[in-house]
């Protein structure tokens, strides 16, 4: 098989514990340098925390694996300073086409509204994402990555977790105040700790092939139900970077995965699909099954589970890596506050609560997609085909066609960290909502709201003319930074410049005001992970401080 990508080989370095024959101790150890572990490590290191990241391998993901990275993931990676390369390299797409038997029944556009920085989704091979994350990680001096360091034992207690780690030079012992487990769906650490993960296995197999070809297929997602070239099953075609196409064939349960993976069996399937003598090369092939399941809770004392180690979904809807990266987005600021002694450890319970809620939503949505794509009974298939038959002509039926729902962040509406509204607001930016983006202008060149938000608590205060902010309000806003948990105030305005010591954010197209239902005096408290914590129609310092306390379990 040919290769469009040169797999890097990362150097193994003899750990100091072995060189100096001693045990090590670290404030945070992360296990697993996949997309989720790397994101967690970069986020913590960027917050000034020293981090040790262990991985049992010495390269990036083999094969394209996770290929769809959703808008919210790109926004998180923007906060970590590494989305731009991925968006440049990846394939941005908005149009999806759905075929039923011989016919195209409809197409859709993912981009629901204008004036957001990032597209709904990009397609990018997982190895590129990991490669970019490792490049970013290596710019952070307080982040150490150790390749070919395999965790073979874990012993947690009330104050720490002790690890036994195997390397080419033998084994060593280290302990960590906090252990973040990002070691994937089969999670050896979860198994070592005897922790349960419950859910259901889907009795189906899918063949995925990365195919290199110079094809004039547009940059769209094509999904076939029951196509003539693969009867009674589904097929998905996606374009990735470098003229690599991802093709998924549903195979059914009663096939031999090893046989199906052989090129002599894969190539005829692809030829039948392309329907001509077009030249192509197989780059990577795999057969997968999947489960939808999650752990009962994601935090176990000093051990914190993220990503596939904590929860798994069917691949329809790209909710694996995307939800794992959102786990770290939720976890890291909380862990940092706990480590700095600024919040009680119960704040980490809210990591589990909020991300279990999100995992349940992801499992629900991907299970619904799976049930539509692969109906489990005759009547379910009849309804499915009836929907597809009506979809060409009738908009209501198009809305019911479910070949995978776009991965979107959860509205944490029921989180105990939220302060309930006491004023009336229109729109979706309720306490717990993931912030909507909007075009803005700032003195430092920032052009997007989400580029200005995140990494600390912030208060967005709206006034039409920033220059008209009265001295008392300016003083009150400035004072928010002087607290154990500082709050950065940002004056959102249509025009003008805020008094000294305050940032001004100009609402360039009026979208911030529209999406957040702003009126003069409206103030939004937002979390370091760009979720709304509280909002009011007028600025009241005591209310802001109470809401910060509530959002950090200090109330």
């Amino acid at each position, binding site marked *: 098989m040919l290769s469009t990508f040169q797999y890097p080989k990362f150097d193994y370095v003899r750990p100091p514990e072995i060189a100096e024959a001693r045990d090590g101790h670290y404030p945070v150890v992360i296990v697993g340098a996949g997309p989720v572990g790397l994101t967690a490590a970069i986020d913590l290191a960027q917050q000034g925390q020293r981090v040790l990241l262990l991985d049992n391998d010495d390269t990036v993901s083999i094969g394209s694996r996770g290929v769809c990275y959703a808008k919210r993931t790109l926004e998180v990676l923007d906060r970590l300073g590494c989305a731009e390369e991925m968006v440049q390299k990846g394939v941005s797409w908005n149009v999806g086409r759905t075929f039923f038997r011989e016919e195209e029944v409809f197409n859709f556009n993912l981009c629901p509204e204008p004036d957001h920085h990032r597209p709904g989704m990009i397609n990018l091979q997982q190895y590129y994402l990991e490669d970019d994350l490792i490049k970013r990680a290596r710019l952070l001096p307080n982040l150490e990555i150790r390749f070919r360091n395999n965790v073979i034992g874990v012993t947690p207690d009330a104050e720490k977790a002790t690890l036994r780690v195997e390397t080419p030079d033998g084994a060593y012992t280290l302990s960590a105040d906090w252990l973040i487990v990002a070691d994937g769906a089969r999670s050896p650490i979860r198994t070592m700790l005897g922790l349960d993960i419950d859910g259901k296995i889907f009795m189906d197999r899918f063949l995925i092939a990365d195919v290199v070809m110079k094809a004039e297929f547009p940059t769209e997602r094509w999904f076939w139900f029951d196509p003539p070239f693969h009867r009674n099953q589904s097929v998905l075609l996606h374009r990735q970077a470098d003229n690599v196409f991802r093709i998924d064939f549903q195979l059914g349960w009663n096939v031999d995965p090893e046989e199906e993976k052989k090129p002599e069996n894969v190539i005829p399937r692809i030829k039948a699909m392309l329907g001509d003598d077009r030249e192509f090369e197989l780059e990577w092939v795999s057969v997968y099954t999947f489960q939808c399941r999650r752990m009962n809770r994601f935090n176990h004392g000093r051990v914190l589970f993220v990503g596939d180690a904590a929860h798994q979904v069917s691949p329809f809807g790209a909710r694996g890596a995307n939800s794992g990266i959102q786990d770290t987005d939720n976890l890291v600021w909380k862990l940092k506050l706990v480590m700095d002694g600024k919040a009680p450890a119960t704040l980490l319970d809210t990591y589990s609560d909020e991300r279990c809620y999100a995992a349940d939503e992801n499992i629900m949505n991907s299970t*619904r997609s799976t*049930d539509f794509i692969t109906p489990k009974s005759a*009547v379910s298939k009849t*309804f499915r085909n009836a929907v597809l038959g*009506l979809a060409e002509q009738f908009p*209501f039926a198009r*809305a*019911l066609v479910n070949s995978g729902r776009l991965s979107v962040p959860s509205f944490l*509406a029921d989180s105990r960290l939220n302060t309930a509204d006491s004023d009336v607001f229109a729109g979706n930016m309720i306490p717990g*909502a993931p912030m909507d983006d909007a075009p803005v202008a700032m003195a430092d060149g920032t052009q997007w709201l989400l580029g200005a938000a995140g990494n600390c608590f912030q208060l967005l205060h709206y006034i039409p003319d920033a220059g008209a902010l009265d001295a008392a309000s300016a003083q009150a806003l400035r004072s928010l930074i002087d607290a154990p948990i500082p709050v950065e105030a940002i004056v959102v305005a249509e025009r003008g410049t805020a008094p000294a010591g305050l940032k001004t954010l100009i609402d360039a197209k009026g979208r911030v005001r529209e999406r957040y239902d702003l009126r003069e005096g409206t103030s939004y408290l937002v979390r370091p992970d760009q979720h709304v914590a509280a909002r009011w129609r007028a600025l009241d310092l005591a209310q802001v401080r109470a809401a910060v306390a509530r959002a950090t379990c200090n109330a």
Partner: protein
Amino acid sequence: MALNTQPNLHEPGKRHFRAFSPGDDFYEALIATHRDLTDEQSAMVNARLILLLANHIGDISVLREAMQIAREGA
């Protein structure tokens, strides 16, 4: 009144943040209604469901239009 073929599903008291959610909620409930039934039982459930919904809609001209469209695709 003509037959409404635009997306029209909603649930009182429930706030949907995503356009696909109400349709998916309905479809899941529909498939769940048939869980563990034989094909014969499912056919009976569908017949009862149509009768109940037809009475709820009430307007026979709307029902005629729906019946005609449904038959065309059989």
